[in-house]
């Protein structure tokens, strides 16, 4: 018998649940302004989440997936990216989208059932939210191949859930990323649950980071509630991808503090105690503690920031609600670059129906 291969999975963290540094902090994390920026994005994300849920509960938004408790993953990874990189988000990475420059109003528009929400004004090459779990991993390797072929120094960053790691397309994507050395970073936001299925029932693998071993690429774990280590690990991975065209899988350990979505009731399948315990480790409080302890963050600064975020969210929500609807015939207009003959006819039929139904009154929305 001979040993032909050896692997180990390492787990990294910078700031623990009490706000204490547990490792040498990366340079950016010594900069008060940078930390406040990261903090602000997380607070804004949480404020946005709350508002979205209120809008849903009052019938003004569709089903919505909250990112409560996982803000450090999205914010940390997006903050590490360059503008020219491309994000391929799952449906729970509102923080990442906000940091990337998707407006809160656009995010609401998407979840409100309006396609225009994915016509981002900001990051024009970023992908829309991917609802079919893991399907965006394949797009990420495709985008990464485009960057490699055009010798652009760009990286594709796909964000996926723990459940997504059980899917065949996730694995096929990881495998080709390795086989072709593509500039892509996969971030697994392991929030311990895939709807009602706990992480332990998803796979017998001890870590999700070790899924990378199957593809021969680097895999590592980070404390996903620590925005500093997330930002650092993603930054390092981006650097490797950008300059060495080396793919990486980062498992960010976090926890879904909310229901799966607004139509889910998590109390059916998990205990309150488990959730309470995880509140102790959530990302915003810990960075606040760190800011207070190390950077003299004040009560006033805190309340100013909270107020500012609330105002920003108010504004976006108002703008979202004020948006006039798309004309019904637009359901035809983007199916193809130009309308095939048989769709011209169908579009005419729809317009005729609308005219019939509608004698000077507005169409229902």
């Amino acid at each position, binding site marked *: 018998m001979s040993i032909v291969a050896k692997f180990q999975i390492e787990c990294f963290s910078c700031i623990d649940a009490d706000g204490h540094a547990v490792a040498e902090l990366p340079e950016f994390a010594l900069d008060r302004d940078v930390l406040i920026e990261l903090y602000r994005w997380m607070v804004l994300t949480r404020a946005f989440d709350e508002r979205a849920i209120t809008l849903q509960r009052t019938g003004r938004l*569709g*089903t919505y997936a909250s990112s409560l408790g996982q803000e450090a993953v999205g914010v940390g990874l997006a903050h590490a990216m360059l503008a020219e990189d491309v994000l391929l988000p799952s*449906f729970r990475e509102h923080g990442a989208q906000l940091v990337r420059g998707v407006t809160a109003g656009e995010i609401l528009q*998407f*979840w*409100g*059932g*309006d*396609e225009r929400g994915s016509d981002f004004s900001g990051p024009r090459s970023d992908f829309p*939210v991917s*609802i*079919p*779990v*893991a399907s965006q991993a394949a797009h990420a390797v495709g985008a990464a191949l485009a960057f490699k072929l055009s010798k652009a120094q760009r990286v594709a960053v796909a964000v996926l859930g723990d*459940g*997504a790691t*059980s*899917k*065949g397309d996730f694995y096929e994507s990881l495998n080709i990323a390795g086989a072709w050395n593509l500039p892509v970073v996969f971030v697994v936001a392991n929030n311990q649950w*895939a*709807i*009602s*299925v706990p992480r332990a*029932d*998803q*796979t017998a693998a001890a870590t999700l980071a070790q899924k990378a071993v199957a593809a021969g690429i680097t895999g590592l774990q980070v404390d996903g509630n620590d925005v500093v280590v997330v930002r650092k690990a993603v930054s390092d991975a981006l650097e490797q991808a950008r300059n060495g065209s080396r793919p990486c899988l980062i498992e960010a350990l976090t926890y879904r503090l909310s229901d799966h979505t607004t*139509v*889910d009731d998590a109390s*059916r*399948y998990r205990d309150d105690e488990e959730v309470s315990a995880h509140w102790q480790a959530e990302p915003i409080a810990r960075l606040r503690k760190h800011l207070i302890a190390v950077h003299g963050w004040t009560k006033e600064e805190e309340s100013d920031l909270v107020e500012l975020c609330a105002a920003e969210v108010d504004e976006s929500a108002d703008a979202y609600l004020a948006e006039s*609807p*798309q004309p*019904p015939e*637009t*359901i*035809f207009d983007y*199916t193809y670059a130009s309308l095939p003959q*048989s*769709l011209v006819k*169908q*579009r005419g039929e*729809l317009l005729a*129906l*609308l005219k*019939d*139904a509608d004698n000077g009154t507005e*169409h*229902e*929305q």
Partner: protein
Amino acid sequence: MNSNPQSSGKELTMVEAINLALRHAMTEDETVILLGEDVGIDGGVFRVTDGLINDFGAERVRDTPLSEALIGGLPVGLSAMGFRPVAEIQFMGFIYPIIDQLVNHASRLRTRTRGRLSCPLVIRAPFGGGIGAPEHHSESMEALFAHIPGIRVVIPSSPAKAYGLLLASIRDPDPVVFLEPKRLYRSERESVFDNGDALPLDQAFVLRSGADVTLISWGAMLTETLAAADLLAQESVSAEVIDVASVKFLDFETILGSVRKTGRCVIIHEAPLTGGLGGEIAARIADEGLMHLLAPIARIAGWDVVMPLPRLESHYLPSPNRIVAAVRRAMDYC
């Protein structure tokens, strides 16, 4: 939820009726195994499997990892070895990875082995629009399945039909794709007798008889179709309404019989027009029933566009008015 399969008729929603059928099948046949994402303690995202894990245990009601290709392929092995898996795909939008296993294995293990091995399995999935669901959750792609030789495709339109057709599907010796119109999951109640009686998998149901025109539909679109029939009655047009139910195989005798009587026919479905099953039905009528037609066969279907997000989905779905207008054209046809 009453777990006694001998209970008498109760007013149930379709969700409850399906649950009851599953319960009945699991009670009568130990080889019936449920599997899918969140079908266990959560009872499925629509609560279709609610409580079953308590009564039948986690061995027989199995939460799978998030792996649709596997949810398609594992039941092939399980059923070939003597079990009767009933697998749930959470939404039709995520069903596509199973087509590979349906086409290449489930549908043909019997013929490949000349009957030595076979696949008595059921794949259940909610489908269709009209409930304002997120992206990818509202499509109707039953035609993809109905084209595959070696399987059956069944779509119930009411709680009692769901109960009887699902029991039949589970007992059927061949693979069945059982598509549940989720708009009907809780929209109406119907009396369901838990007597274990299956409905046939080769019969259409005449929901309303009429003399002037035959309206043919299935699943949730029967709501619009029946509403159109009501509107037409006000105009003294008597519409016969047929629920196809078993979209594969079609009960073409019932369909043709009706068209022979009325001479006019409108087929209504939610799926996009092109390549939808309306084409199959119209083609058979145009072949075998041409001499009885007093007017062209019309199809009222979803447009050939990607299903819009909720804000505009009402403009995608066929409405009673569209159906009525098509019938009027048929009635006015020289």
